[in-house]
């Protein structure tokens, strides 16, 4: 299958604000990305873009390459082919520290928190890049380091308030139920005040009430802070409700890229999910 054009795709992303058609500027565009591990082709010539302020979902059956795509975006995997354009700067590949300092934050499919640390401390680690004072001042906890600590603590408290996790502020996250750990992880990602937030299956393993809460938080993050969100999710109901646009991958190939209603009706997508044999 060849590469599909992306409707409304702008070849020079980042160079425009809201166009005449009412579309927001493109914050991130990936072009012709291919990624292999040895003979395994994980991503095959994938191109899509993410516009500022939208909720963009990537869906697909297991092993479709969804997490790999996020790993490419935040620089954890280096694709053999293609380019990534983030906020107007085109690169062959991202580096994790560049992604983080440029405003990309993420959560992980398998929770990656510091289990022995409290919720508050975990969220504070997300502020790491916002801290400017050096170790010397921080160790003494005086002068600018103190002011900075107060400022970061306030930011962390605002996130705790936002996510309604005041009751577990001082609890070690390792002891928390899974659903709450997921919420703390979202909190840590938010602490970096990202422009683009990558969420890798934020609702996996949750019951319907926890999912509902998480959906509300994702929508609130998007509308309150204007954060652009790229979301990987298995729950189709969630994806179709939340997303502005949906990218469908299957075996590393791009099956569809459209608004939820059209994706839902796309025969190729239905086949992929119902398991039509591949040639």
């Amino acid at each position, binding site marked *: 299958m060849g590469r599909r054009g992306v409707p409304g795709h702008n070849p020079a992303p980042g160079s425009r604000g809201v166009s005449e058609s009412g579309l927001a500027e493109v914050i991130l565009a990936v072009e012709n990305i291919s990624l292999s591990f040895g003979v395994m082709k994980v991503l095959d010539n994938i191109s899509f873009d993410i516009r500022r302020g939208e909720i963009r979902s990537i869906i697909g059956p297991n092993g479709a390459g969804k997490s790999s795509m996020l790993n490419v975006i935040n620089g954890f995997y280096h694709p053999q082919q293609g380019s990534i354009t983030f906020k107007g700067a085109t690169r062959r590949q991202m580096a994790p520290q560049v992604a983080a300092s440029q405003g990309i934050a993420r959560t992980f499919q398998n929770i990656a928190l510091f289990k022995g640390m409290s919720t508050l401390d975990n969220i504070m680690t997300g502020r790491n890049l916002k801290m400017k004072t050096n170790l010397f001042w921080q160790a003494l906890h005086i002068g600018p380091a103190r002011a900075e600590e107060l400022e970061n603590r306030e930011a962390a408290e605002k996130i705790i308030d936002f996510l309604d996790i*005041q009751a577990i502020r001082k609890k070690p996250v390792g002891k928390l139920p899974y659903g709450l750990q997921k919420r703390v992880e979202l909190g840590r990602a938010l602490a970096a005040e990202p422009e683009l937030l990558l969420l890798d299956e934020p609702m996996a393993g949750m019951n319907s*009430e926890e999912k509902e809460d998480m959906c509300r938080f994702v*929508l609130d993050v998007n509308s309150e802070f204007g954060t652009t969100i790229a979301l990987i999710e298995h729950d189709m109901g969630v994806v179709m409700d939340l997303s502005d646009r949906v990218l469908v991958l299957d075996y590393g190939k791009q099956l569809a890229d459209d608004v939820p209603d059209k994706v839902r009706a796309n025969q190729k997508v239905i086949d992929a999910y119902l398991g039509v044999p591949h040639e």
Partner: protein
Amino acid sequence: MDPTEQDDILDTFPKLLHSHVQLRPERDAIREKDLGIWQSWTWAEAAVEIRALACGLARLGLKRGEKLAIVGDNRPRLYWGMTAAQALGAVPVPLYQDAVADEMAYVLDNADVKIALVEDQEQVDKMLEVRDRCPKVEHIIYDETRGLRLYEHDFLHEFEKVQQDGIAFDHDHPDFYDREVALGKGSDVSIMLYTSGTTGNPKGVVLTNDNVIITARNGIIREGLTSNEEVLAYLPMAWVGDNLFSYAQSYVAGFCVSCPENPTTIANDLREIGPTYYFAPPRVYENMLTQVMIRMEDAAEIKRKMFHYFMEHARRVGVKILNREKVSLKDALLYRLGDILVYGPLKDVLGLRRTRLAYTAGEAIGPEIFDFYRSLGINIKQLYGQTECMVFICVQPDGEVYADTVGTPAIDVEIKIDDNGEIMYRSPGVFHSYYKNPESTASTKTEDGWVHTGDAGFFDEHNGHLKIIDRAKDVGKLTDGTLFAPKYIENKLKFFSFVKEAVVYGDGRDYSTAFINIDLDAVGNWAERRNLAYSGYIDLASLKDVYQLIKECVDKVNQDLSEDSRLANSQIHRFLILHKELDADDGELTRTRKVRRNYVGERYDVLVEALYSDKQQCHIETRVTFEDGRTGTLAADVQIWDAEVYPATILPREAAA
């Protein structure tokens, strides 16, 4: 009590507010934990906020006699909403914040609410959902802006914006606020509270300023409360008790009320505030005790032994010491030591270290639970009353506290028992009327001001305290004509920490039977310590060992009942453990968590019939409502067990001795 001249003037809440601004402008009036820090407002600051809000409400068109609905957790801004409405002569109508939209629609419409002041997006969504059914609601004001930025409606207003407009309005009409406040009278309607309604639709209880303020003042006088009390406002604002303890008494005595950060942080906030004056329904005390016991079972051996040793000592002498009775020097010293090592730290963890006065009411409290707290030196007392009398008509006097009575009549309260055994009262707190419901008002309140409580009870011959048996209408008869008081039996069952709820049937039947809800925490912990695997509530509730555990509880209750000749025939013959927890969202409990026995009986009629057959098992499918309002089905095979029934005439304990 002769009201002083000043009391005559201070007959409304806005006037009381003004008096505190004069008397103690710099003292804290209200506090709330926000972003991890306790933020306070002094009386002077609170008055400024309230004035701005009142003017804002006036600008939106709220007039004398009109209704302002208030929906949300306990927050300063919502409490200010009450005073602001009262300043305009309007009537605040607090609603239960966890009610689903349909329940709210009824109250909003019945109360003729004009403006709704709500906490957050969740509540705004509910209001929008029922808006077309409540055309009288003209404006909605919200406190928390999160998630609401994209909502664009003319009738939707942000709290701060309303205040800003209010300030501008105040600037243009400088006399307006003071003039409105001066117009208020003691006989004006102060608040409308909807009773939870164990039967039929909720009724709006109309209470005047005199009802609320005089009752609040009488309570303060009787217990010697001062402006130095610390109170945590954590019970629903729609409940009359919160209106008395966290609002009215604060305004009368001038003490500071603290609002928790979040409903889930209450235990922690309680510890930080350390209230001196505390109210909780029995289940809160039960939960606290269960938590303590669970944690102690998991504690290191030395701690556990120390805990049990000193608690045993406290059980023996603690209550006597609290009642200022004489104990031996050795016991007194040992109690002191226990206070340093166990009681003090324990009270600290519970947040009750500074508590001078704690109340409980609403349901009967288990004697063990009651004695546990009293033996720690916490002066916990029972009171009795209802919404229609502004919370209480009976309170236990200090030094005369018994687990099975509700005390003596409060100041200015007259109580009598009518021929059917129903308790009736007359007091300054007696409600004005049920809103738009003259028939109910007439059937509840007599011409000369006596109110039917609907409870059956009697005065104890020895100590003159009032004792409650059951709801008068729930007291029934078995087919052999003997007395059947279900609540009395249910309470006995609920005194076991393993039993969360019990529903007993027997009226018009040959014998009594029971539905049991196990306490997931307590039984779960018990099961874990015995290495019993279970996957959730349904699974745990169906385990044979759990049934055996509950059977032992039921057997003990039967043994108790067999000792009372009047109640021996209502021993429980058969019981089952329900496959789901009774839930207010399914209509099985009221919003104040009281079991709706008849509704539960209808909903599970298959199970009730099975209890009165010889079946050992019964299949049931139940529709359940999730928190988001969606429904699903729950199916289970429920076992039915027989309990031990004891002969009535022989008293086993005496026989053994």
